C-alpha cells in the first residue's frame, strides 16, 4: 500500500481534506460514507422512482379496469375530485378523522406521559404496559374493538345502563370507531415521544409554582403545558401524518365513511382505476404537506408574536 514520496502538492492535500473533519483526527481510517450507497440505490429504485411514476399516472386517462392511456396529460381526474361527492366527502372525512385523532391522542397521551414521568411507583409498570401493548398486532386490536364498540358490546351496554343513551351508539363501522381504533394504534408512539419532554421539565419548577400560590390545575395549565409545547407540537405533526396515512384500522372500523387511504385501495382493488388512485394518492400527500406547512408557520408566528 506504499505510494511514492508525498509531493507537496495542494491538490493531494485537498483530496485528503475532502473528507471534512471538524478536527484533524482520522482521515485515513474514517468510516466511508459509501456504506450508505447500497441503501440509497435500493430506495431510489424500489421507493422513490416508483412513487414518482405512480404520481404521474394521475395525469393519465382511465380506459377501463386496469388500463390507462398515458399519451396525453389530462387534469380530468382532479376535476372529479371536486365534482363527485364521493371524493369530496372522502377528503372531508379524512381531514376530520386525522384532526380528531390528533386531539384525542394528545388528550390521552399528555396525562399518561406525565404520570409515567412523575410517578415513582407507577411509572415503570405503566411504561412497560405501554410498550408491550404497542407491539400487538393491529388486527388483534381491531378485533377487540369490534367487540368493545359493537351495538351489543360493553361500552354501549354500560352507557345504556347508566341511562346516558337510549339506543346503542353506532361506534363500530363509523368514523368515530375509526378514530378510536387509530388513537389506540398511535398512542404508544406519542407517549414514548412525550416522556422525555416531561422528564426535561424539572420537578422543582412545579414546586416553585406551587410555592408561589398556584393550584395544581393552574400549574399544569400555565407551567407544564407551555413547557411541553414543543414536544406536543412535534407529536401532533407525527400523529397527523400517521393518521392521514393509516389504513388497516380505518378500513376495518370505518364502515362506509372511507378515508382517502381506504378509497385508494378500493380504486385499485375494485375499480382498478389506476389514474384515479394516483390522483387520490397525490391529493393525500399534498394535504399532509400543506397542513404541516401551515401548522409550522402558525407555530412560528406564535413564537415570535
Amino acid at each position, binding site marked *: 500500500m506504499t505510494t511514492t514520496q508525498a509531493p507537496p502538492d495542494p491538490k493531494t492535500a485537498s483530496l485528503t481534506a475532502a473528507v471534512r473533519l471538524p478536527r484533524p483526527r482520522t482521515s485515513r481510517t474514517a468510516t466511508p460514507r459509501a456504506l450508505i450507497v447500497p441503501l440509497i440505490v435500493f430506495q431510489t429504485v424500489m421507493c422513490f422512482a416508483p412513487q414518482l411514476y405512480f404520481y404521474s399516472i394521475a395525469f393519465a386517462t382511465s380506459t377501463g379496469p386496469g388500463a390507462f392511456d398515458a399519451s396525453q396529460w389530462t387534469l380530468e381526474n382532479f376535476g372529479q375530485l371536486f365534482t363527485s361527492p364521493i371524493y369530496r366527502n372522502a377528503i372531508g372525512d379524512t381531514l376530520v378523522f386525522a384532526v380528531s385523532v390528533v386531539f384525542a391522542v394528545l388528550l*390521552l397521551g399528555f396525562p399518561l406521559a406525565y404520570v409515567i414521568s412523575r410517578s415513582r411507583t407507577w*411509572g415503570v409498570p405503566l411504561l412497560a404496559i405501554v410498550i408491550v401493548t404497542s407491539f400487538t398486532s393491529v388486527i388483534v386490536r381491531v378485533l377487540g374493538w369490534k367487540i368493545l364498540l359493537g351495538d351489543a358490546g360493553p361500552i354501549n351496554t354500560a352507557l345504556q345502563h347508566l341511562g346516558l343513551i337510549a339506543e346503542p351508539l353506532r361506534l363500530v363501522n363509523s368514523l368515530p370507531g375509526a378514530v378510536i381504533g387509530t388513537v389506540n394504534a398511535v398512542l404508544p408512539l406519542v407517549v414514548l415521544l412525550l416522556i422525555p419532554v416531561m422528564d426535561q421539565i424539572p420537578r422543582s419548577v412545579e414546586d416553585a409554582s406551587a410555592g408561589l400560590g398556584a393550584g395544581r390545575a393552574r400549574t399544569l395549565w400555565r407551567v407544564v403545558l407551555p413547557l411541553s409545547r414543543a414536544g406536543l407540537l412535534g407529536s401532533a405533526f407525527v400523529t397527523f401524518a400517521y393518521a392521514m396515512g393509516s389504513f388497516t384500522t380505518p378500513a376495518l372500523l370505518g364502515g362506509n365513511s372511507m378515508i382517502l387511504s381506504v378509497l385508494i385501495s378500493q380504486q385499485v382493488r375494485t375499480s382498478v382505476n389506476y389514474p384515479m388512485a394516483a390522483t387520490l394518492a397525490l391529493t393525500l400527500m399534498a394535504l399532509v404537506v400543506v397542513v404541516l406547512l401551515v401548522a409550522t408557520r402558525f407555530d412560528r408566528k406564535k413564537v415570535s408574536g
Partner: protein
Amino acid sequence: MSGRTPSAPAHSLGKRLTRFSLVDFVLGVVAVFGLIALAGPTIVAIIGAFGRDRYSTFPPSEWTLHWFATIDPVYWQVAGTSLTLATLTTVGSIVLGVPAALALARWRGRGRAAIGTLVRSPLQIPYVVFGVAALQFYLVLDRTLGIEILGTMTGLVLAHVVIATPYMIGAVVPTATGLKENVELAAYGLGASRTRTFFTITIPGLKNAIVAGALFSFLISFDDVPVSLFLMGAGTQTLPVKLYFDTQFSLSPSLYAVAAVITVFTTAAVAILMRVVGLKRLSGR
C-alpha cells in the same frame, strides 16, 4: 427514572409534599383510562376467543376452547408465509441498514441531516400509496423487461425491506453515534484490517441495537397489511391480510382464536427484547 433530581421533594403521585389535589386525581383517572384504551382491545380479543357464542357477546357466557380447535389450517400456512417473509425482510434490513446507520452516525460535514431524512423518508409515506406504487413498478417491470415478481415472495420481500429498514436505522444510529472511534483505531494499530475490525469489533458493539432493530423490522413486516395487500399472489398470501379479509367478510370466533395465538407470539418476542435490550433503552431514555 431520569429527570429526577436526587434532592427534590417526593413529588410522585404516591407521596407528596403538596396536597394531593383533585387535579392529580383526574390526571390519574385519565391516565388509567388511556391505559385501558391501550390494553383493553387486546385483552378483550383474547377473552373473546374463549367465548361460546358465535357472535361474541362480552363477557362470554360460557368458556370453551372450541374455537382453537377449529382454526382453519390455512391460517398455519399463511402464518408460515408471513414468518418467512418477516425473516427475509429482517435479513435485508440488517444488510442494508447497519452499514447505512454506521455511515450516517459517522458522517462528517454537511449533508448529514439531509441524507438522514432521505433515508428515513419511507416512514412518512402512507403505506397504501407505497404499496400501489410498488404494484405499478412491478407491472412495468413485467411489461418492459419480462421480470415477473408481482405476487412472488421476492416482490414482497423487496417492498417490505423498504418500509422496515428505516426502523433498523432508527435503532442503530443512536448507538453507533456513541461508539468510540478510538476502539476501532486501537484495533487497526494492533494489526486488524478494516473488514476484520468491522466484524469483530464494531458489530458486537452494536449487537443490542441490531437486535432491537431486527425485532422492529420483523414486527413491521409480520404485521403489515397495506403493502402486502397489493403485492400478494396466489401462493403468497400473508397472515395479516387473510385476517383482514376475514374480518371484513366472514367474522367468526375462530378469528379470535388466531388473534390470541398471535398475541402470545408477539408478547413473547417483546419480552425477550426487553430482556436483551432493557426497558430503558427501548423507550429511548
